[in-house]
């Protein structure tokens, strides 16, 4: 038996023994996910146990080095772990900005002390992170950001405002873009820094969304003290890190597009007289969508396999972001159509407080967060197709 076969056998056995039954069902939405953090309230004992067991093995972040709390798995082993988890429909034990955004950036640009300090806490779900990029006047034009950093020797004093900061009110720490030099061109005066959200002068005010939920905030910094030991990479070189992190954010956002099994739902709701969905017009729309969704699923697989073979995904992540989020939006439009008027229930037990409608509305932000669809298309046309500016 090869090493990989052995690994697969053992992984399967371990998962069988350690993944609680209730964690073998898909998460029902953002509220059903384990985000971790100092103040996280577990929805069940199973959710907590599942995180602890996976965290202890480093399998929340399978490919990170073991010394930083990861599983130390090769990419091939990680692929096996993922497919074994998929086999029993195991949920991710932990979803977090730390895992899919900050972690990869720290691994590439952080120094040893920073990695030792922050990565294991991400892996075990102890510290929850938020992303301080966007500002009122720096959205798509992110490099126009103006949060000001005054150099005070071993630390900076920060003043300014972030906006649309997802979960700023729930997060423990923030990775933040600040302006450390106003005298140079906009891309060259930005730094990437980390600080605790409990630091004096940090204030997060939740903003209510069309979904009725408040997952993101206006975040204000008034004379906030941030230590230089937590400045990642070189001073004024934060833009490079910011962009690298975005490629991970984008491929991660794109990845969500195929989670909800649409055709199974449609079968249940519309029935299949003569083996086909009862409503022909909807069947047509669904199959059109499912063809693209299957194609996208294989594109994710190919992109990961190509990255495995030859390094970074780079600008291709913009294609995944654009395509995956547009798919997710159309998927939720279809879920609404399949449910008919039931989809518009906003409150009440029957609909789990309007779950369908709220999830549908939430997807409208998919093609805005992490850089809009239009911005992704700009990146594809310039960076991949080489079209002139």
């Amino acid at each position, binding site marked *: 038996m090869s090493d990989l076969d052995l690994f697969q056998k053992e992984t399967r056995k371990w998962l069988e023994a350690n993944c609680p039954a209730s964690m073998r069902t898909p998460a029902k939405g953002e509220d059903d996910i384990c985000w971790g953090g100092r103040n996280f309230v577990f929805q069940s004992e199973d959710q907590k146990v599942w995180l602890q067991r996976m965290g202890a093995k480093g399998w929340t972040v399978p490919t990170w080095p073991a010394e930083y709390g990861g599983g130390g798995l090769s990419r091939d082993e990680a692929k096996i772990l993922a497919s074994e988890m998929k086999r029993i429909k195991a949920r991710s034990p932990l979803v977090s900005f730390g895992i899919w955004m900050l972690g990869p950036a720290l691994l590439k640009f952080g120094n040893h002390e920073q990695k030792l300090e922050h990565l294991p806490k991400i892996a075990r779900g102890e510290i929850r992170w938020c992303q301080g990029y966007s500002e009122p006047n720096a959205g798509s034009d992110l490099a126009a950001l103006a949060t000001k950093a005054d150099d005070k020797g071993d630390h900076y004093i920060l003043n300014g405002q972030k906006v649309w900061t997802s979960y700023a009110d729930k997060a423990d720490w923030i990775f933040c873009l600040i302006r450390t030099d106003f005298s140079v061109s906009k891309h060259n005066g930005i730094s990437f820094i980390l600080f605790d959200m409990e630091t004096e002068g940090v204030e997060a005010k939740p903003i209510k969304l069309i979904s009725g939920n408040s997952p993101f905030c206006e975040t204000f910094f008034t004379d906030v003290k941030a230590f230089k030991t937590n400045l990642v990479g070189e001073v004024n070189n934060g833009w490079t890190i910011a962009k690298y992190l975005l490629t991970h954010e984008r491929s991660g956002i794109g990845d969500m597009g195929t989670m909800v099994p649409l055709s199974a739902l449609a079968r249940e709701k519309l029935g299949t007289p003569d083996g086909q969905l009862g409503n022909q017009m909807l*069947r047509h729309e669904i*199959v059109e969508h499912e063809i693209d969704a299957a194609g996208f699923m294989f594109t994710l697989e190919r992109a990961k396999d190509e990255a495995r073979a030859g390094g970074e995904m780079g600008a291709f992540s913009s294609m995944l972001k654009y395509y995956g989020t547009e798919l997710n939006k159309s998927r939720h439009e279809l879920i609404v159509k399949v449910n008919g008027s039931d989809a518009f229930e906003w409150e009440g037990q029957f609909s789990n407080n309007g779950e369908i409608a709220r999830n549908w509305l939430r997807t409208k932000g998919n093609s805005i967060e992490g850089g809009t669809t239009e911005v992704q298309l700009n990146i594809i046309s310039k960076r991949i197709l080489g079209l002139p500016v």
Partner: protein
Amino acid sequence: MALVLNEEQQLLKDSAEGFFGEKAPVSQLRQLRDDQDDNCFSKPLWGEMAEMGFSGILVSEEHGGVDFGMVGASVVAEAMGKNLSASPFHASSIVSASIIALGGNDQQKGQMLPAIAAGEMLVTLAVDEQGLHNPEGSSLKAEASEGGYKLTGLKTFVQEGGTADKIIVLARTSGEAGDKDGLSLFVVDRRAGGLIVDQTVMTDSRGWAKMTFEGVQVDADALLGEEGGAMAALDPALDKARIVLAAEMLGMAQECLDVTVAYLKERKQFGVLIGTFQGLQHRAAELFSEIEVTRSVVLKASQMADMGGDVSWFASLAKAKACKTVELATNEAIQMHGGIGMTDEFDFGFFIKRARVVQALYGDYGYHADRFANRSGY
């Protein structure tokens, strides 16, 4: 298996792209059209393709082929799509070779596969009788006669029908048009008495024909596979053929994008390169994305076909997606070129005129979208 080309497949891709780019670019198809060439392909090219092993790409080594598998076949077809290279590759080396390998007896395999692999014998399939693909709808009749069979009826949209040496024809030995059962395959010589071949000039300038069978008498050993059981070989062989057609469409779509992007970097209006217009940039970026998704499904379907088993879900996925994408690509390419895109002198006309034919061949978008849904259980 990783969803990427392995080293050997990558080498094949590079050599196929080099080969067809040099030996059979679009200008060759233009020449064939302008010369009203009877074969509708270049015989010397086909000879060289045989030397390269392309004609025996799916044929086992035992029968003289190179057995590169479906990923290999798709990679070659993609290169042919980019160049619109005309040849009997699809009719003979993909469709017919697959049917014979799956349904033929030892004698039929021994007689035909080595000759196909060597490029010496051209075989094609006659399956459809009406404009829309519908194998089960076949009504061409095969009646027992003189210890063999007598074939009567009409077939249309036969690839390389004018030049093929042998025709595998789908005929009804029992049942009614629409029944899946009762269909049988026969190998008929093109010079058989009572067979009338009408070469049909079509938009893509390739070698199509309609065939009228006026009581064509064949021996009992012309039967390929079980009587009444044609679908056992036909269905899986057609699925391979569809995947390879999807690869050809992928090549066409990629070429349309590449040429269009190059034009956007060169043509000026309003004093600037038209590639600076965001309205065009975004359309190019969207097309790029659709092509990448198509590339993924073609590769996945080809890999699954190499692994064996029923690949109908994958084949319909690939064919449906590629049909959509190549339709978008050919339309966008013309639009983004403006007036010049409409001229015969420019090559896009050849691409759109070939693309629609390949879209229709062995099932269009609607056929495969419906089949994909059925296979998915809805």
